């Protein structure tokens, strides 16, 4: 695990060229994917709701997103009088840039099984199929998702209007709350992989379906991650941020034209990125059977398919699940997901320790169960007491 | 020009000074808190620079602790700001001069 072999022996023009090419490709891919994602979502939802959906622009309405984009581009850029001029302009870019940057560390191809280390050869240079592989790739992802909060928050604040502000505060509170669960689910994977590099994580999952962390981490982290990711993305059923009934349109109420488009773009980019991350973390990334020839081709295909599956899941959620209430959202995050993933993290660590030090497994797991029982009962009692106090307070008012 | 450790130290020191000066000239507790963060960051930078020069990981470990301290401080500091304003609705802190130093 020594980072991208591309930069191992000095950096020359070719290396730089390759890097630039990778950036361009990834960016284009993401843009195009976003366009289709928008179409995909609208189409899918309309199917699920027994309607037709976009069908005028292009075949099956495929160019609908493009048309929307053009429309956005030519609309007048409005800025409310109360808005903070600088921040108002800055916010959409933060959203968009972080969305794209996150994608940079996701390995989208490369064969990992059987001795190969996930490299492909371009112009005679070995390189990874990802824009960058920093040694702390996963942390980079988390960092970017932390930064993404700013876009939402600042947009809401800078609009100088009430509803966007409430929407943005909600959004950021939600994002921060779920970031904890998200991070800990990631930590489980990191513990199992023994590395923070996304490339390393994928490599650690190579060698068959059972090596995927989905399985070896015991599904729980994945579920937590999925829920947390949905919340992090402000996707339904966690889209309180833009709950039209309460908040008009959420943090981007006051935005129009290209700036609104940027938010829109960022949101869908994030969905794709998050799907890609889930694939990377739990589904072995580009892993999959290589049928014939072109070893670099099949992994990418598998990767795309897996991402697509997740995109479907997100849309499916949107179409089927009712939106949560704000207190339900917070309760779910703090009182269920975090304790659960915390426990799971400890359990996984214990399991690894037991394996390493050959502890007696009866004693080990016995102790774990006892600790769990005590912890869970204490937590329950405390939560109940808290609820009771809250109820009393309400009655007093 | 080669970038020696000294330059990092100078940058760290500058951040520290700017933060310290800011803390003294600004009257807004929120900004003061941010200035404290600046100072801590100046220190962090020095730690990392030393860590690299010394070839010792300890400096980086320390930065990690400083982050935690900064977080704890900010939580409490912001809690204080909220507590001060929350309990006197409608007043600005200009009125808070019962304890003029």
């Amino acid at each position: 695990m020594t980072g991208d072999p591309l930069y191992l022996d000095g950096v020359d023009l070719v290396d730089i060229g390759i890097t630039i090419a990778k950036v361009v490709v990834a960016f284009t891919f993401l843009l195009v994917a976003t366009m289709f994602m928008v179409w995909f979502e609208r189409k899918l939802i309309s199917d699920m709701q027994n309607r037709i959906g976009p069908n005028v622009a292009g075949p099956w309405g495929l160019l609908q997103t493009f048309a929307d984009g053009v429309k956005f581009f030519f609309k007048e850029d409005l800025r409310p009088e109360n808005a903070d001029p600088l921040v108002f302009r800055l916010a959409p870019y933060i959203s968009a840039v972080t969305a794209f940057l996150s994608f940079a560390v996701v390995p989208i191809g490369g064969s990992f099984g059987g001795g190969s280390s996930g490299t492909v050869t371009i112009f005679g240079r070995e390189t990874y199929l990802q824009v960058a592989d920093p040694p702390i790739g996963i942390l980079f992802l988390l960092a970017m998702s932390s930064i993404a909060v700013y876009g939402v928050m600042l947009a809401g604040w800078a609009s100088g209007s009430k509803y966007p502000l409430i929407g943005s505060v909600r959004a950021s509170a939600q994002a921060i709350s779920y970031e904890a669960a998200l991070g800990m689910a990631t930590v489980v994977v990191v513990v199992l992989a023994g590395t923070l590099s996304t490339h390393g994580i994928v490599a650690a999952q190579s060698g068959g379906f059972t090596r995927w962390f989905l399985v070896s981490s015991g599904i729980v982290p994945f579920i937590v991650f999925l829920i947390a990711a949905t919340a992090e993305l402000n996707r339904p059923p966690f889209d309180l941020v833009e709950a039209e009934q309460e908040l008009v349109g959420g943090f981007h109420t006051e935005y129009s034209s290209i700036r609104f488009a940027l938010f829109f773009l960022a949101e869908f980019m994030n969905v794709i990125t998050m799907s890609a991350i889930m694939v990377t973390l739990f589904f072995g990334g580009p892993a999959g059977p290589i049928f014939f020839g072109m070893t670099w081709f099949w992994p990418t295909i598998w990767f795309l398919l897996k991402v697509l599956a997740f995109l479907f899941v997100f849309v499916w959620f949107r179409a089927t699940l009712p939106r949560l209430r704000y207190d339900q959202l917070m309760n779910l995050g703090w009182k269920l997901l975090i304790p659960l993933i915390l426990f799971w993290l400890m359990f996984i660590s214990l399991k690894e320790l037991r394996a390493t030090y050959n502890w007696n497994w009866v004693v080990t797991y016995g102790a774990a169960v006892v600790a769990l029982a005590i912890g869970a009962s204490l937590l329950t009692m405390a939560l109940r007491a808290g609820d009771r106090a809250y109820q009393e307070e309400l009655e007093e008012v | 020009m080669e970038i020696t450790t000294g330059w990092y130290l100078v940058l760290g020191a500058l951040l520290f000074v700017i933060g310290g000066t800011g803390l003294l000239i600004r009257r807004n507790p929120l900004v003061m808190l941010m200035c404290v963060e600046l100072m801590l960051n100046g220190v962090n930078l020095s730690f990392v620079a030393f860590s690299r020069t010394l070839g010792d990981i300890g400096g980086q470990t320390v930065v990690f602790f400083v982050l935690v301290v900064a977080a704890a401080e900010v939580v409490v500091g912001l809690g204080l700001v909220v507590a001060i304003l929350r309990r006197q609705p409608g007043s600005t802190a200009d009125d808070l001069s019962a304890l003029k130093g």
Partner: protein
Amino acid sequence: MSGLPHLAFAGPSIDWWALLPQMILLGAALLILLLSALAPQRTSSGLATVITLFAAVTAYIVALGLWSDVKTEGPSATVASALGVDGFSIFFTILILVALAATALLAHNYLDREDIDPPEFHALLLCSAAGAIVMASANDLIVMFLGLEALSIALYVMIAMHARRPEARESAMKYFVLGAFSSAFLLYGIALTYGSTGSTNLVHVRDYLDAVVFRDQHLLMAAMALLLVGFSFKVAAAPFHFWAPDVYQGAPSPVTGWMASIAKAAGFAALLRVFFAAFASHDADWAPVVAVLAFLTLLVGAVMAILQTDVKRMLAFSSISHAGYVLVAVQSASANGTSAALFYLFTYTFMVLGSFAIIGAMGVDGEHPLDRYAGLGRSRPVLAMAFTILLLAQAGVPLTSGFVGKFQVIAAAVEGRGYLLASVAMLSAVIGAFMYLRIVMAMYVVDDGVEGPSPTVHWTVSIVLIGVVGFTLLIGIVPQFLIEFAEDAVPVLIRG
């Protein structure tokens, strides 16, 4: 995949006994929080007080055990040399625990009276005590820093907990901002120490400084200066004292007592350990600076104290001037000086706790004008006498512990040829005495017909008062054992 990769790793050996006092305190804090979370309704302060006291006593017993261990087996360091197990640390541990028990008792009734949440308060008190112990025992600058932060942050909250009084929150804010400011200085000092010696561990620092002669030592000088500034803030030494009066005045009285005693003592503990232990070989560089600080602190404290009209503020300034005395002892950079500083801190803790206990009982509405004490000697002679003894002890009148403390400080200064400083210290004692006499005078000298105030003194406060006054007089008359204790605490420190 079985097992963690690269797990060939052994953690440092840990002397759990040495950690036990801190662990007991933390455990008690968590227990209090847990019980309060599970309790069906808001509990009164009884249970929390009992748990705190129990924890203090248990930890005290453990500390005594550690003391005898250290006496037989000599000092040691544990957890990768992060924590010193030596007379010095146990001395302060014992001091902190005693003050903890006293503060818990003082707070007991106060919390109910002032409508402050007892469980959180006691939990924070325990946490800050743990932080103080860590600070005093720390053998590593970072551990020391973290202990300091634990102590300080808990204090910020404890000060602000007073729900009814905006002054409390404002003074907490003030303390917070300046505390954070000073922490940054301290940390910068730590960074430069690390840079110039290659380690944050005090043993390594000392060994390195002993072994190496610097070609130029600007970095080390800067490090010492910054550390000194940081510590000066923490112990409220002039010219970094300006936060103290406001904060002391605004804080709830039990917290003020805790702050003036333990926050100060822990600050000095850290200062002594860093400068006397780690920077011992460079004492020619730092001792004069400390002497200047001591000089300023003594004068500022004494002179400003006599200008005040609020009793709590008076004692705040007097507390500054007491820091000056300890600095006088510190600047002598000798074993005797250190033992004098330890003795002084130990005895001062009792005086100041008792004083603020009385102030807390007197100031029901948060106001402490001197007039309020008029005639206390007539209406509550015992209380007035207790206060008088504590005040005279702070003034350094013989047959109280304060005198023995001052005597040792002077002795240490004189031994180090600091005649001028010693004289200044004594003169500032006289200036300070004026302030104490004003309070005494207010209590005793009243015109006929003036009915003195009759504050209600809860029995827990009485217990503390009996204890501190008794201790103050006892040490004033037979100080030998405490002097020996302080002397045993000196040589200390750090083995590799």
